[in-house]
């Protein structure tokens, strides 16, 4: 009878003390990540990109496009100049400094990467969780929809939607607490996100299906845990590493798709993204090649950075998948 009433609580307290002594899952993953050289390189490049975007007004010698000073090289008679010390990436036919434009474009790239990733990740995690956990009819319906998205080239729909909404942009910028949000770019972001989730939803679904059969989930179920509890406390933490990796890869593909859409002329007409710069230079790229090469290089390095980071994270967080 002298058994303490809440011995479960005491047990938990002891457990937490034991757990505190060992390295956490994340510390172990970080230790593994530190050994992955390409991953570290990618992380470094991503950090550099964020720094460039944060200080883009300081780094760039000329202001961004709507400002008349952006066309200063034109007034100095230096339009369409090849790269030089003064203009490291040359100047465009319009008489803007390409280096400044690339630096200013980084902020839009980060905006696209983060926003698309937020929306897409939410979608694929939700669909994967619901489809995998509910099974049966819901799973059938969701997976059929996923298949349609997967099998049909989404770029065609993205182009069509982007073109249609390009004609219907109400105003170039929304003012959100003093931050200018480009409306057209946000529309492109939403369109890209809507068509971006299906393949990863299948990956998540597969993970959930595997976890559902695990003994700890069966145990939780037999103890009477609710579905909500199982999903949020048991399944979600277990798919989180996979979600982080897929989110990083989504960033890479988001940057790539946005650049492609802008390059074809279907992007936001009011923001100068890297793809837009390349579209403007495409007319006469045989002579003014630097307008094409440098923004494209920026896209390539950014996508490469996110892909390398994703590879490194994948090795660090999912050791099960390593050969």
């Amino acid at each position, binding site marked *: 009878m002298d058994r303490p009433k809440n011995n479960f609580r005491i047990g938990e307290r002891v457990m937490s003390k034991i757990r505190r002594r060992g390295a956490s899952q994340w510390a172990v993953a970080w230790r593994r990540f530190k050994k992955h050289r390409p991953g570290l390189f990618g992380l470094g490049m991503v950090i550099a990109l964020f720094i460039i975007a944060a200080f883009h007004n300081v780094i760039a010698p000329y202001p961004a496009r709507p400002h008349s000073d952006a066309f200063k090289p034109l007034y100095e008679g230096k339009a369409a100049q090849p790269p030089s010390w003064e203009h490291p990436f040359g100047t465009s036919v319009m008489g803007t400094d390409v280096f400044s434009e690339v630096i200013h474009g980084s902020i839009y790239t980060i905006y696209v990467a983060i926003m698309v990733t937020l929306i897409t990740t939410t979608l694929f995690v939700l669909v994967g969780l619901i489809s995998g956990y509910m099974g049966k009819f819901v799973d059938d319906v969701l997976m059929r929809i996923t298949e349609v998205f997967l099998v049909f080239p989404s770029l065609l729909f993205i182009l069509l939607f982007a073109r249609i909404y390009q004609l219907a942009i109400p105003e170039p910028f929304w003012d959100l607490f003093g931050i200018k949000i480009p409306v057209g770019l946000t529309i492109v972001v939403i369109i890209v996100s809507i068509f971006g989730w299906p393949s990863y939803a299948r990956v998540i679904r597969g993970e959930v299906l595997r976890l559902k059969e695990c003994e700890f989930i069966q145990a939780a179920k037999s103890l009477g845990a609710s579905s909500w509890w199982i999903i949020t406390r048991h399944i979600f933490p277990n798919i989180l590493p996979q979600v982080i990796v897929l989110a990083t890869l989504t960033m890479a593909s988001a940057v790539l798709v946005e650049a492609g859409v802008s390059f074809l002329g279907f992007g936001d007409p009011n923001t100068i993204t890297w793809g837009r710069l390349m579209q403007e230079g495409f007319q006469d790229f045989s002579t003014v090649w630097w307008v094409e090469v440098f923004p494209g290089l920026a896209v390539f390095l950014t996508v*490469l950075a996110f892909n390398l980071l994703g590879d490194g994270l994948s090795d660090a967080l999912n050791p099960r998948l390593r050969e």
Partner: protein
Amino acid sequence: MIPLILGISLISFFVMYAAGDPIKIATMGNPSITEAQRQFLREYYGLNDPIPLQYLRWLDHFIHGDFGKSIYGGRPVNEIIGSLVWETAKLQIVSIVLSFLISIPAGIYAAVKQRTIFDYLISGISIFGISVPVFWFGIILILIFSFHLGILPSAGAHGAPYLWPVFGIRNEILDEIAHLILPATVLIFSSLAYYVRLLRAGMLEVLRQDYILAARASGISERKILYKYALKNAITPLITLLGLSIGSMLAGAPITETVFSWPGLGRAYVTACERLDFPLIMGITMIIAIMILIANLIIDLVYAWIDPRITLE
């Protein structure tokens, strides 16, 4: 698979027609057009009816194999697509076949020589292929091989009437090949990475199996083990990916075809989108959907041929 076609046609149709008046957009650059003439054009293309009715009419024509007429120039969409589809198919088939021919030995070799310089080199090239924007890569190739070295044509699928000289020989087949090289390289490069990575992972998995050990123990040549015993088991995911990527290869083509001015479906789709030429957009969308379905059917047959455990229902 019929619902798939219906679904795709429904989505594109309603999105397009919710967008606005195609006649107004088409005639925007013409200041001398009168409202009455616009009205006549709308009547001519049947754009005054309610949208669901228009869709049903479109569906009826589609079932009878008629996609209507392009808003620009009034050429029948069937004719336009007919003249483009061969060019796209040529480019796609060449790049798919070549990327398979390259990725199979590369993937096998990377798995056999795991953690050697060769393996890292292949991984490096794959991550480069995944990350590089196709349009940028295409432009770089054009700058180097067309403008700087001047050995390959930069645009188009044919050099007619002046055939491109290959080693000084002007020949129609050589001309076609010369035009194919750059766009095919770009397409191969962008898809190769996925194939190689998948095959490498599959081979690593299969080579650990007991029956490979048994085959080695019975003295079967290494070459036969790799290409006959292991490859057949490792290649199935690759074929799944092929089935899924046939659509996206056609979709990857709009950008590549625009860069190389390739007279194919992808570039026509981009121009049609720019002008909101609705009948042409619908036509190309449906043709691509049907091509995807046919491709997937073929893939299912290939599956059953490669893996006898899979039976066709």
